[in-house]
């Protein structure tokens, strides 16, 4: 049997799963980080470009649901592999992983010449996988709390809501930085690992990164294939249980999304006070001087004989013939104005 040049690492289903996770993760980071960093110009520009804060929240929530569904699917598949196919659980962390990590550092420092050989999953990949498991759990729980604060505070102290927000944001930074530093370095920078596109690794890559796995494959060891009857028997147990559990998880997820109408959906509340209520009688705003008492000057009525007369000043300006002379402050007043004050009886 000739040795193949390439080895299948990820099935198509696994690759699709990775792409879905990658897309939802990117969307979550893209819509989540600017929310955490509101106040910074880059964050606010990003929010504006994405269509405003409300749209950003909708995208974030949608991407979260997609990721949750992908995680749910992953659980069902892993369950099938473990309980029905009974494959080796190669991603389980072991003590040897810690040893491997130390040995890699020692090798890189030149303290040892022995290059560490990895099985199907190296400690590098295991760390990433379990970090994701932890992150998804934490983000899911804290996300639920923020999404449904009213119901959360029925059972838990209210302070946990801002605590959840703090953890959600900090964990997001940790996750994004880990992806950038750890994941990008190992599969994009150091070597460009195409297995998530093609599903395959070259023989050379296998030698370098999964020497033990290659050894196993070359030795003709493959996953145990229990006989179809046994699988059928196990499926009869697993499928109903898995269906029940996933139905339960789907219902939970549905509740997660629709459980709570957090706030009223009406438009802004307004003051319902009557605006125009004039004071009656309207006070006349004056200065600080006391308002004089409104008593009219006591003027003697004109003699009845003056009825019909239209000229006044002819006599009164000079006091001719002994008639009352105009007081000094009346200077310049014309005949037409006199009767405003001086009235007939």
């Amino acid at each position: 049997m000739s040795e193949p040049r390439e080895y299948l690492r990820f099935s198509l289903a696994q690759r699709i799963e990775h792409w879905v996770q990658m897309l939802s993760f990117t969307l979550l980071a893209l819509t989540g980080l600017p929310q955490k960093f509101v106040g910074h110009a880059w964050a606010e520009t990003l929010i504006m470009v994405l269509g405003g804060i409300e749209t950003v929240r909708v995208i974030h929530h949608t991407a979260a649901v997609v990721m949750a569904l992908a995680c749910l699917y992953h659980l069902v598949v892993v369950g099938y592999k473990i309980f029905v196919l009974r494959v080796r659980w190669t991603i389980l962390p072991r003590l040897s992983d810690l040893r491997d990590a130390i040995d890699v550092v020692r090798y890189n420092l030149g303290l040892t010449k022995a290059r560490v050989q990895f099985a199907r999953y190296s400690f590098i990949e295991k760390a990433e996988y379990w970090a994701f498991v932890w992150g998804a759990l934490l983000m899911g729980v804290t996300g639920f709390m923020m999404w449904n604060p009213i119901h959360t505070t029925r059972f838990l102290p209210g302070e946990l809501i801002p605590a959840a927000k703090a953890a959600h944001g900090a964990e997001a930074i940790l996750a994004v930085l880990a992806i950038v530093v750890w994941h990008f370095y190992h599969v994009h920078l150091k070597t460009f690992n195409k297995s998530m596109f093609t599903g395959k690794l070259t023989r050379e890559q296998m030698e370098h990164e999964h020497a033990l796995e290659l050894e196993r494959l070359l030795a003709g060891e493959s996953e145990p294939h229990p006989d179809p009857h046994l699988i059928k028997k196990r499926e009869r147990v697993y499928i109903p249980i898995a269906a029940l559990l996933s139905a339960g998880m789907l219902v939970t997820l549905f509740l997660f999304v629709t459980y709570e109408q957090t706030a009223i959906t009406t438009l802004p509340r307004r003051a319902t006070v009557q605006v125009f209520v004039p004071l009656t009688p309207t006070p006349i705003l004056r200065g600080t001087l006391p308002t004089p008492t409104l008593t009219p000057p006591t003027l003697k009525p004109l003699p009845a004989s003056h009825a019909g007369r239209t000229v006044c000043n002819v006599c009164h300006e000079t006091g001719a013939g002994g008639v009352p002379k105009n007081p000094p402050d009346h200077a310049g007043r014309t005949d037409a104005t006199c009767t405003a004050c001086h009235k007939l009886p």
Partner: protein
Amino acid sequence: MHLRQSYPHLFLAVITLVLLSASFAYAQGPTAGPPSTTIENHVCLACHSNPTLTLTFLTGEVLSAYIDPAQYNASVHGKVGQRCTTCHADITAYPHPTVQARDSRDYSLQMYTVCKQCHAHVYAQALDSIHSKHLAAGNRNAAVCTDCHTAHYVFNPHQPRARISQTCRMCHSIIYDQYAQSVHGAALLDESNPDVPTCVDCHGVHQIVDARTAAFRLKSPQMCASCHTDAARMRRYNLSTNVLNTYVADFHGTTVALFEKQSPDAPTNVAVCYDCHGIHDIRSTKDPQTGIIKKENLLKVCQQCHPDATLDFPSSWMSHYDASPTRYSIVYYVNLFYTILIPLVIGSMLGFVVLDAARHIKERREKSTPPSESEAQDE
């Protein structure tokens, strides 16, 4: 460019003129001289100092035509010797031309535009106000210049300061009563406190905006913050200046701040300062009866928008505090945990990656040159 080089002094003069006229336009005082008139005030007062003098309108409404000479002479216009006929320019002799107004309101609405001839700048500002909009829409009750400043006895409108709010009270008496009970109003009216806002500090002076718009709502936190982040002023009352930061850091404030910047006219029902603290009836949060420092009182406030909220829901809002070991300690320790964890994890990863990359680059280089003996053994 050519002009500037040939006539530098002319250019300077033009700039100076432009700047000067601009600064005049923005000054509060009158911007143009009154039209010249020759009739002395004592001529008018000869009759109009008679308290019984009245004017009867077509509707039968009687308006006093009396002018208190002492009051007028003490007013801002009297002090500078403004003549009656500056405003009553149509009156040049006796008998006066017939007043065409149906009633006294009609007369005010006809007359107030004369303010424009000296106070064009504020007059123009007032044209943008909610009062002018209502007036234009046919509401005769909407305030014009003389409703606030009076026609004849114009005094400094903010001397004493409480006079401002009392002016607004003439039409907005219910709101005034609410304000008078509030922390701000009580301090203004009882102690003449110069730190508290009067009506115009929030609503504007001549450009009084409609306070019911989405834009006003979105801007309102900044409005409150203009005083509540002023350290000197807040220190006098032992109030925190961290109120805006903590608001913006939380869900409500984040949303409102973004809305204000990105869609200032979009309606939002997310809480702003006055939804929790009150609009005109702002009480102290420490008020023994109504103070929202009490969880039960705050819950009622929360329930206005979150009707299903229960007693522990209010503590999900950190009450304008920053998390500390004594207040919101869970939040504080979560933050502390990540402050340690993130650099630790990412730092270790970086350390590992840098070492690995260095080795990787070194090996590549060695591969391109003839392999040494040790390298050959390794493979």
